[in-house]
């Protein structure tokens, strides 16, 4: 292995970063006002909830799992928030709702963790099954879409303190959180368990407990994501998060994290979300006829996902 490729493996987010630069440049070409605060802010508002969710998904995938219930968890927390908070709520109610949201997110994650880590059920089908549980509870809590948040909160989400969009602070905080987390023993264990569970166990890592915690953490991230999403939409819907599940996984993979586990990171996942969102933007702005947009979107994403493999294929031939 040449040193350069080893270095690349430790900085898996570089390939997606290149993708991002290309996507942003193209977007700027088609939409010259892309960097205007109002437009940028609009884009970031859409990205932030999915970024938070993909960050959690990345942690689960690094530990060798996967979570198909994340969308349902987001929906569940979303309906919980709008049930506990009304337009007239003051800070105490809001704080209570935030606490409840984190608690419910962690509890939902714990259900997944229990099934996967301790009952040793297969993650893909288990989290698919629990997504019914969470969606069902969400529907029972809020049978019809509705609800509202205090105006001050939704306004804050759209504001730009010191000229920088509030959501940009959110992304910075998310990355900062990762920088801190990455140094913790917990995240080191996630890599160890996802890379080689037997070796991790042999060196004293509590494998099942680590897996369990990865799902609980996912639940917390889903709750945070739901908070951002609720700030963005300002209302509740028991299906609101459903469409976020698969993009959260695609973003993680686009970000250079392998589904096999043991490698990758949150930075890549965050970039992956940005790439996904900008590709959508591009399709809207480059005048692709409406009926072709889904196809175009899918082909571009598939090519982006296949890119590294194709490069390797060509390189392998030459060697």
């Amino acid at each position: 292995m040449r040193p350069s490729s080893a270095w690349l493996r430790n900085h898996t987010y570089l390939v997606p970063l290149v993708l991002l630069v290309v996507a942003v440049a193209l977007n700027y070409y088609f939409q010259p006002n892309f960097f205007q605060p109002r437009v940028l802010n609009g884009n970031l508002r859409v990205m932030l909830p999915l970024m938070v969710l993909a960050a959690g998904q990345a942690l689960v995938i690094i530990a060798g799992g996967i979570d198909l219930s994340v969308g349902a968890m987001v929906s569940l927390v979303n309906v919980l928030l709008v049930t506990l908070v009304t337009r007239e709520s003051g800070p105490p109610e809001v704080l209570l709702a935030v606490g409840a949201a984190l608690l419910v997110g962690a509890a939902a994650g714990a259900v997944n963790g229990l099934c996967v880590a301790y009952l040793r059920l297969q993650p893909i089908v288990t989290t698919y099954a629990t997504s019914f549980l969470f969606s069902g509870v969400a529907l029972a809590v809020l049978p019809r879409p509705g609800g509202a948040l205090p105006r001050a909160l939704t306004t804050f989400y759209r504001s730009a303190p010191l000229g920088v969009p509030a959501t940009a602070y959110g992304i910075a905080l998310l990355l900062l959180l990762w920088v801190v987390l990455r140094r913790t023993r917990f995240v080191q264990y996630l890599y160890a368990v996802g890379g080689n569970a037997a070796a991790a166990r042999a060196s004293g890592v509590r494998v099942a407990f680590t897996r369990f915690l990865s799902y609980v953490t996912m639940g917390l991230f889903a709750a945070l994501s739901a908070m951002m999403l609720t700030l963005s939409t300002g209302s509740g819907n028991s299906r609101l998060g459903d469409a976020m599940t698969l993009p959260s996984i695609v973003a993680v993979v686009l970000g250079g994290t392998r589904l096999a586990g043991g490698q990758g990171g949150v930075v890549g996942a965050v970039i992956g979300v940005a790439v996904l969102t900008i590709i959508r933007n591009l399709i809207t702005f480059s005048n692709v006829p409406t009926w072709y947009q889904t196809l175009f979107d899918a082909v571009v994403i598939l090519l982006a996902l296949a890119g590294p493999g194709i490069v390797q294929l060509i390189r392998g031939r030459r060697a």
Partner: protein
Amino acid sequence: MSRVPPAAVALLLSVALFFLAGLVQPNFVNAAQAINIVRLAAFLGIIAAGQTLVIISGGEGIDLSVGAVVTLGAILTFMISGGSSERLWLALLVVLAVGAAIGLVNGLGIVFVRIPPLVMTLGMAGVVQGTILAVTRGNIPGGVPRALANLVTGRFLGVPGAIYLWALLGLLMWFVLQRTRYGRELFAVGVNRRTAALSGVNVSGVVVLTYTLSGLLAALGGLLLLGFTQRVFLTLGETYLFPSIAAVVVGGTVLAGGRGSYFGTMAGALVLTMTESLLRSMRIGEAYQMIVFGAILVVLLSVYGRQRERE
């Protein structure tokens, strides 16, 4: 550790569920209802056939494009036949060819470009959905050939054609898995690709063929499903995607690969359909139906869906 075949457990479970339903809902238990449930399960079972092969092949094998390919199969049949029974053969040929081609691309992408199966087939599902939208523009002209409707819903000795077709597929799958070289090699590849390759199995060929078969079977499932639903819409197959995986796992096929049977999948499809029908008949509201279905699914998975500890 019991050594009862998972297929038998799942089958017993569905029979037990059926009679248990009788306790809650006495008018649920009768021959007509039983036949109706098996008929509903037939479509899920047929659609899950290819999924079974893919999952046995191991290497994180999974096919998330089956939902989109089922929809495509139904739409192609609808459009090509235009409701004419004579053109059904042409439709069948095209549907099988297109399904196989999609599966082939999946297989090539997975084996040669090394895209993880989950991502490759998920991307392919998007491409197929996108193509359907781009070509039809939401406007799908055509019709359901009477011959197809008769084949699927027509009854022989009181049993709908779909169930005979399913049974036939069951025998065919058993034969392929247990009595052909491909079947033997498929299990070998699923257990351990390296040892399979060392003992002379063309691993790449087997995996590509498996995804090709999965596409072909999903498209065929779409064609048959059209005979039942009698209409097409863009999300027709989507609802079968994850149930097709759940049916395989509940039937005892291990997601890690190398072990499983189609009879297990058939039993799994029966259990899932039974549970859903039972819940629907109980009129407890959609929210509680979902909660109970999720809980039952977790319990079912814990019966045979437990993974071996990786060495």
